[in-house]
């Protein structure tokens, strides 16, 4: 287990050379990747969301592609389309793969794309395949969609429908760096010094091994029951939530907790894992009710209350 911890420590250290601060964000993205899930990063512009994902992709020997979402983006711009190819005097239709055919897909500002385009990612995220016309194309493993969105400038945006949001394992909140961190960021990017180049630390075999090991991490019965009760409470607790989380959240919480345990070098899931990951797992899966919103209660506050009650 110490070896695994060493791998993740090295990864974080390497990312830290380019991305100052944001350790928690990078850890959560790694959790999503080890748990074989997708992540949605939400934060104000300029908080190194895209940079973090790009750097992480650079550290792994994985195919990376980026989709900049705009209202006029078409589904075929993501999945790919048939083009006419002329060879030997003959014209044939050839499938031109879209950016979704990669290992890590960064869907930048996903809420700027139309629902039709957003839903093009749906099949890819869940089924790991793309259907164009009558043909279904399997996506290469591992496959992650790491999407970003910002909570401001909501005009002209299309908030993700619940069904699609549920397919993201984690919704990671990107916060502002501390004063000291910001000082370091400014020093790094204004001194004219060269931005360090990343070296590849992991390949897809390593990643798939880490994914299989993370599923082997054992969990105590009472901790598992607590996790399930927590998810169940989002459905039962009508004073906060209008809609609760689905069983997909239960699966996600356990898988993500196992992945976190592995990243932390622990060979068992702790209550701390459940408590830490309850926020990114639940915050996009529950819908607050009118009364809670009237009181100005945020989703994270409600989850905190739930964690206090479900012991």
């Amino acid at each position, binding site marked *: *287990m110490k070896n695994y911890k060493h791998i993740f420590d090295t990864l974080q250290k390497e990312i830290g050379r380019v991305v100052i601060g944001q350790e928690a964000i990078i850890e959560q993205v790694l959790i999503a990747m080890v748990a074989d899930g997708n992540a949605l990063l939400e934060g104000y512009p300029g908080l190194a969301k895209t940079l973090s994902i790009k750097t992480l992709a650079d550290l792994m020997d994985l195919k990376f592609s980026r989709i900049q979402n705009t209202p006029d983006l078409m589904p075929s711009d993501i999945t790919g389309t048939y083009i006419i190819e002329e060879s030997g005097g003959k014209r044939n239709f050839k499938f031109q793969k879209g950016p979704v055919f990669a290992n890590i897909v960064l869907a930048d500002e996903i809420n700027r794309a139309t629902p039709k385009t957003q839903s093009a990612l749906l099949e890819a995220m869940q089924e790991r395949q793309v259907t164009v016309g009558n043909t279904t194309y399997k996506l290469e493993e591992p496959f992650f969609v790491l999407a970003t969105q910002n909570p401001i400038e909501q005009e002209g945006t299309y908030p993700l429908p619940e069904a699609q949001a549920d397919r993201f394992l984690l919704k990671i909140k990107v916060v502002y760096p501390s004063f000291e961190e910001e000082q370091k960021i400014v020093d790094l990017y204004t001194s004219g010094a060269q931005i360090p180049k990343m070296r590849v630390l992991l390949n897809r075999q390593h990643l798939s091994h880490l994914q299989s*090991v993370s599923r*082997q*991490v*054992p*969990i*105590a*019965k*009472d*901790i598992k029951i607590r996790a399930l009760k927590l998810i169940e409470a989002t459905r039962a607790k009508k004073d906060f939530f209008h809609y609760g989380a689905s069983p997909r959240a239960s699966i996600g919480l356990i898988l993500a907790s196992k992945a976190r345990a592995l990243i932390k070098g622990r*060979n*068992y*899931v*702790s*209550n701390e894992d459940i408590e830490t990951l309850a926020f990114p797992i639940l915050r996009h899966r529950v819908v607050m009710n009118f009364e809670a919103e009237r009181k100005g209660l945020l989703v994270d506050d409600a989850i905190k209350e739930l964690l206090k009650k479900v012991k």
Partner: protein
Amino acid sequence: MKGFLRVIREVNLVIDSIIVFDMLLNSLIFFLALYLVSVLIGLYPFYSAIPAAMFFIITTYLGFDQSKALLVEQKYPNLNEKLRTAFDNAYVENEVVDDLEEEVTDDLRNVRVSSFIDRKKTAYKTSAIVALCFVILLAAAFGIRFIDVNLLVSELPEFLTAGAGLSPESGDTPAAGAGESSDIYGKEKLAELGAEEIEINLAAMNFEVLSGASFREPPEVEFEETFPDIICADDPGGCGNEQYSEEKTPVEHAELVKNYFLNIAK
């Protein structure tokens, strides 16, 4: 995995025996306390063994039902969550679980059995047992009894005891002298005094224990069948002819004696 299952069995056995020991002490205190109360209120004291036995069974069952891993974790925070997880996944075989079992087995080597025995509490409990035993002995030796439940029950109005098996008629035979008296003295107070139990202590006297050799046959004495003349002289019928004799008390003497006792009673 087999090795770890043995570790689990050993941990369970040790914790179970400590639980049994602790519950045994608790039950003994409970029994002695009940015994003392029974002695003081005049109940049959050995009945207190029944609730004490029930107390022992219930508390021991609840103790056994507890998670042994949790008990160990409470004493050893370095095993927190780890031990529970290893116990729950003892039958799972994979790289991570094997690593966890190995780690837990190593950590369990530092677990001392004595850490589960609260010496202070055990000392208090043992002292309480000794103290209770002394109090019971003293109460028995001096015959200390605050109330007599049997007597209270016998004095309850009939409508309260009816059907509950508490009425004197339904149970034991009432003590001699209890109830209404119709004799010539006719005083209720006197009748009640007669209802009280009398404790008779037989004082030990000097005596010799005779060995078998010192026993001898009592001497045979032949009695004469003839009555002394002094008895037979007043009897005109003659000795040996009458089967009974009647006391001839003058009526005035009898009246005198009766009046004497009536005056005393007044």
